[in-house]
């Protein structure tokens, strides 16, 4: 420390002591003020707001949400335990359940699908041969009288079994061995044969209700989830012995995460209790245990208050911030408290003890907090909202620690003076620890820690497949014929053994949790159990939204100025579109486009990871089958007509299409689909078609794929396959008119909402030449993209700032290099942990983007230990006449033991985070904990060796020993 620093520290200490009451009142008043804003914390857990909107995947998802809705889908699964779904009591229950869930707040009933839905219509014929399209389930439920009731059930069954569109989505079939039966054949097509096979060999044992909710739900999720759970519980109580109920969906998932956080708030109390006990054990006085907690508590309230005041959109991940503040703050509290007690022991004067403690602690505390801040500072530049939230609030919170701990605690100690104990001179365990480690590091076994660290590093490198990554990188162009090598090169994936993609549900929730086992005997996490059950039953549980638009665009509708009063067209058809006069515009009025989309959908349905698709094309194909099946014959007996009426198709099925009196005359394909479009428009309810096609322009629409996997590797493969298909077929007839997804440089208008004004997002281009796909699959891929961008960048940026900080602090290249090198060892072990989690398929803790934040934070925190150790080693070298052994022992007895206790306190503070059902908190805590344990191991066992071997002048400064000793002793 320089003289100048001491002067500042001295002035600061004198100032706060002189104005002790004012400082205390000011801090308490600020905390009280912040307390009023705490309940305004905007915890909403919306993954759509996590990632940068300029990402093309996210922009596509946003665009599809804004244009077509269906952004908050829920699924309820109802599976009978015995028999099939065609039991009267079950159908009655489904009817009631459907009514209740579609009556939940924020529901869009028109977008609900289930057996009682008005969308479920017969595709048959009446006895007289007319087309029959009545609802399959009577709108007011089944009749009470038995014969009529059975008739209705038979009608439902018959109709459902010939419904090409909704049966695969709504009915779960099982064979005698309990295996799922697929209605769609391996080729992605539904045929008479594939359907017959299922109906003959399998039993319908389950059905689903799919519901859509508006975005307002996200503002009132806690109230909503109570209602949603209430409905489930009611039916569970009444029918639980006969029916298995499952529930899933983004709104439920997100809302239940927030609820889980509130429900497990008591764990925070457990954490505080542990810290209180550790502090009491360390100081044996309640003032010394309570006041540090009070100080840190004030910092937490101030930070939460700022969160509430700024209305920053936060996620459940932000629960980590108060915990980190608690952990870090307690470390500083211990330092100041210990120093205060040491000074009190010396002088017996509380004023003097407070002055000295503040004077000699404020600078190292500021420097230490400064290095901590760099972990957060580095991540503030990453365009992910919760990274920024961590950074902003982390920086604010830690900055306040100087006031609430280093300053406030000694001031309060004067008011609530602790008693002195004999133990202040030091504890036995600390000395024993110091002696033991010193013996190890100065004896013949000194290589043991180094070998251990090298071993851990090599194991980590092996697990991460670093060798494969480097081999692929150096393979160059020649190796690119191997797609995996090309991928590694493109993504600079030097550690292919570590999965960076995300399994969103598992990243949100663990599948089991220990606390559940202990408290209830069942550690199963219902959200995941239900999701897995539904994944096994449904065609898919996450969506892939393919936004289809024309390359050419469409004309605006003609306004009043297009025609004169006398009825003359003034603005021509080249400038505006008159829907009643002009030829229909838009790609969805062209048969070749619809056919290309139909082929695309067939391919999608044949993909092993896509269970089902829905699009406007299905409407057209079904209508085509209905209207062209020979008079008096069941339409589904002509499933070959379930197609887009292109000329080749019509020629192939001439019996259905040939025009009367014309041997080779067929309807015009375009006019035919235009007629269908017109008929569908006039017969649909408000918003019904708009979920799939833009009926304003007929120039854009959406294909929704239901993806049957959430495995991060498989979801990525699915995206790549879709993109590859689109590239290969880009010039096909019909496809050449299309563009899929939002493109680079597009402007997406986001409407105003509440106090937030309307704004525009301009997309970037992270995936040049590839189609952007929306839906949860797109969000998953975008998350992977971000993870690949940051998994190396963020730690490197952090390490650079930490390096510069330590360089400035110590003015020693060697010390800065040693510290950062040791940080890299810890970092490698974190990657190794990620690789291990990948190898066992534990998708709650692979190196997904939310976990990566732990790398930077841990680096910022971890370097602290090195800083403390090096500073103390220098001090002790001066104090002990450059005697390395004595200096090391003394350092380990003081700073070393404090580091150990700090780590224990930090691990204790993670208890709440590790024991909820939430996987994101668990995984981040796990990575930080692992890093801290590693950091402590390195700081206590490896760093001293490195210092001793490399002998940096900062520590081993010949000739200055005595001056250093005096300086330190004065300190």
């Amino acid at each position, binding site marked *: 420390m320089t003289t100048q620093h001491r002067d500042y520290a001295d002035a600061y200490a004198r100032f706060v002591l002189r104005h002790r009451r004012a400082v205390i009142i000011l801090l308490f008043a600020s905390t009280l003020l912040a307390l009023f804003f705490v309940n305004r914390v905007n915890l909403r857990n919306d993954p759509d707001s996590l990632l940068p909107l300029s990402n093309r995947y996210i922009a596509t998802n946003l665009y599809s949400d804004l244009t077509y809705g269906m952004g908050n889908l829920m699924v309820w699964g109802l599976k009978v335990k015995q028999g099939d779904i065609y039991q009267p009591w079950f159908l009655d229950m489904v009817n009631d359940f459907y*009514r209740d869930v579609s009556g939940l707040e924020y529901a869009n009933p028109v*977008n609900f*699908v289930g057996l009682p839905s*008005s*969308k479920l*219509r017969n*595709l048959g014929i*009446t006895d*007289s*041969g*007319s*087309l029959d*399209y*009545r*609802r399959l389930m009577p*709108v*007011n*439920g089944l009749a009470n009288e038995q014969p009529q009731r059975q008739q209705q059930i038979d009608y439902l069954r018959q109709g459902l079994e010939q419904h090409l*569109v*909704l049966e695969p*989505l709504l009915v779960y079939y099982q064979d005698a061995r309990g295996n799922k039966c697929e209605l769609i054949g391996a080729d992605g097509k539904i045929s008479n044969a594939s359907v017959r096979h299922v109906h003959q060999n399998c039993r319908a044992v389950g059905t689903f209700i799919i519901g859509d909710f508006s975005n307002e739900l996200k503002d009132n999720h806690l109230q909503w989830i109570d209602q949603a759970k209430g409905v489930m519980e009611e039916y569970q109580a009444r029918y639980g012995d006969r029916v298995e109920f499952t529930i899933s969906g983004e709104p439920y998932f997100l809302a239940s995460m927030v609820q889980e956080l509130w429900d497990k708030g008591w764990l925070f109390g457990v954490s505080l209790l542990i810290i209180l006990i550790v502090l009491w054990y360390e100081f044996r006085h309640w003032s010394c245990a309570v006041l540090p907690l009070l100080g840190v508590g004030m910092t937490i309230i101030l930070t939460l208050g700022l969160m509430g005041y700024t209305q920053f959109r936060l996620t459940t991940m932000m629960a980590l911030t108060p915990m980190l503040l608690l952990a870090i703050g307690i470390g500083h509290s211990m330092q100041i408290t210990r120093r205060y007690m040491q000074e009190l022991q010396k002088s017996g004067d509380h004023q003097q003890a407070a002055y000295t403690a503040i004077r000699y602690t404020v600078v190292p505390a500021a420097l230490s907090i400064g290095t901590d801040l760099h972990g957060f500072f580095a991540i503030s530049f990453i365009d992910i909202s919760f990274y920024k939230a961590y950074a902003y609030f982390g920086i604010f919170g830690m900055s306040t620690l100087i006031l609430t701990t280093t300053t406030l605690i000694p001031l309060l100690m004067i008011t609530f003076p602790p008693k002195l104990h004999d133990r202040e001179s030091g504890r036995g365990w600390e000395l024993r620890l110091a002696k033991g480690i010193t013996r190890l590091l100065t004896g013949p076994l000194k290589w043991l820690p180094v070998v251990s660290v090298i071993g851990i590093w090599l194991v980590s490198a092996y697990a991460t497949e670093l060798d494969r990554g480097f081999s692929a990188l150096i393979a160059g162009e020649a190796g690119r014929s191997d797609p995996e090598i090309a991928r590694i090169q493109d993504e600079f994936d030097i550690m292919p053994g570590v999965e960076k993609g995300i399994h969103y549900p598992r990243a949100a929730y663990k599948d089991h949790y220990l606390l559940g086992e202990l408290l209830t005997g069942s550690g199963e996490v219902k959200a995941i159990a239900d999701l897995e059950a539904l994944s096994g039953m449904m065609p898919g549980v996450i969506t892939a939204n393919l936004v289809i638009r024309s390359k050419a665009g469409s004309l*605006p*509708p003609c*306004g*009043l100025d*297009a*025609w004169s009063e006398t*009825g003359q067209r003034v603005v021509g058809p080249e400038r505006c579109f*008159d*829907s009643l006069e002009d030829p*229909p515009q838009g790609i969805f*009025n062209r048969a070749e486009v619809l056919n290309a989309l139909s082929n695309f959908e067939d391919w999608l349905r044949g993909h092993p990871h896509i269970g089902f698709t*829905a699009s406007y094309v*299905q*409407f057209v194909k*079904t*209508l085509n089958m209905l*209207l*062209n099946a020979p*008079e008096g014959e069941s339409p589904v007996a002509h499933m070959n007509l379930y197609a887009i009426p292109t000329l080749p198709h019509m020629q192939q099925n001439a019996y259905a299409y040939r*025009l*009367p009196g014309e041997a080779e005359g067929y*309807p*015009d394909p375009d006019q035919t689909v*235009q*007629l269908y*479009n*017109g*008929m569908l428009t*006039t*017969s*649909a*309810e*408000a*918003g*019904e078609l*708009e*979920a*799939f096609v833009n009926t*304003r322009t007929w120039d854009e629409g959406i294909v929704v794929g239901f993806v049957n996997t959430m495995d991060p590797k498989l979801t990525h493969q699915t995206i790549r396959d879709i993109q590859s298909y689109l590239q290969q077929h880009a010039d096909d007839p019909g496809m050449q008119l299309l563009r899929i997804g939002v493109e680079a440089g597009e402007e997406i208008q986001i409407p105003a909402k509440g106090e937030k004004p309307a704004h525009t997002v301009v997309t970037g281009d992270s995936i040049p030449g590839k189609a952007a796909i929306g839906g949860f699959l797109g969000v998953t891929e975008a998350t992977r993209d971000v993870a690949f961008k940051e998994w190396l960048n963020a730690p490197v940026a952090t390490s650079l700032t930490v390096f510069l900080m330590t360089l400035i602090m110590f003015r020693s290249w060697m010390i800065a290099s040693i510290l950062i090198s040791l940080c890299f060892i810890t970092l490698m072990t974190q990657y190794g942990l990620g690789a291990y989690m990948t190898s066992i398929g534990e998708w709650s803790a692979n190196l997904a983007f939310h976990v990566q934040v732990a790398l930077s934070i841990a680096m910022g925190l971890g370097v602290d230990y090195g800083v403390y150790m090096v500073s103390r080693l220098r001090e002790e070298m001066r104090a002990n006449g450059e005697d390395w052994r004595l200096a090391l022992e003394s350092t380990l007895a003081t700073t070393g033991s404090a580091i150990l206790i700090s780590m224990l306190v930090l691990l204790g503070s993670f208890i709440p985070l590790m024991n909820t059902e939430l996987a994101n908190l668990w995984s981040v805590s796990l990575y930080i904990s692992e890093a801290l344990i590693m950091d402590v191991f390195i700081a206590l066992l490896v760093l001293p060796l490195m210092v001793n071997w490399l002998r940096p002048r900062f520590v081993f400064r010949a000739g200055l020993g005595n001056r250093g000793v005096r300086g330190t002793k004065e300190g």
Partner: protein
Amino acid sequence: MSIRLTRIAVIGMVCHLFSAAQAEDVNRLSQTPLSAQAVAEQVYTAAHGGLVDNALSKRRGREVAVVVNRAPLAMRTQDRAPGVQTFDTYVNNAPQDPAIETLQMAILTSGKTKGTGVLFTRYADPGKGAVISMWLPALRKIRRINEPSHEDVWFGTNLTYGELVLRTPEDELHELLGEARVEECLAAMELQPWEKTRYTRHLPGPQCAHIGKPVYLLKSVTKFKNWWYDFHVSEIDKRTFALYKTVYYKDGEVIKTVYIDWQSLDQPDPRITYPRYIYAISHQDGKDSMVYVPRSTISLNVELSDDFWSEKTLQNYAR
């Protein structure tokens, strides 16, 4: 996923706009105290009876009957003009075949479905369901379709087939709330400047001519369980039993209001009226629809043989 595949027959229901007349001596009825059930039956008769042999609405110059559908409020944007469909209709209330009660024909005359025609045959035997034959011009074929259900939407509007055609007085329990006078103008679709096109610029505004007319206030509770409304309250002309305004309630909230502007056809028998416009607005999402039939398009008792109401006419109509 939202898929309603085959609500195609509703196109045929355009015909039902034409059935306006009263079958009984309205002067006598208006002077006799009536029960709620009797009022409901008179309303039904007024809306479904027929005092003319045939009636037609056919484009005359630039005037043509239109259906205008406007999207829910949340979906409205400045580049979204309301959907417009023009149509001609032909109603035969006195077919020579005694087995047939009415023959109704509608042909769409604009847009993608231009030329699509529907022949609706309703039989005298109430047990025999109506038959709908639809001419599909692009496919050049006729398809027969069964009758839609009560809750099916009518022609893409926010009106249901039940409201306009199927619902009978027996489907509801009626309660006479009292008598009053029409207090407000009947609402009509009010378009924003950017929503207007040449087809909608002359849509009629709110009708105030009925203000002051004495009306019955009739509350009708549906007998259907889990129905889309619980009850509706109607304002019914005491003299003609014309239904001016119907307000639908669900769970205590107003969910939809339907206004009908009944107008005289200047016939010797004043009971022969027609619905100049029907305007329906759903209050939950703001979607509204309007059917407008200009007076100039209407002709009554035209010399047309029964053969005119045939599939052949449908096929040749647009040629």
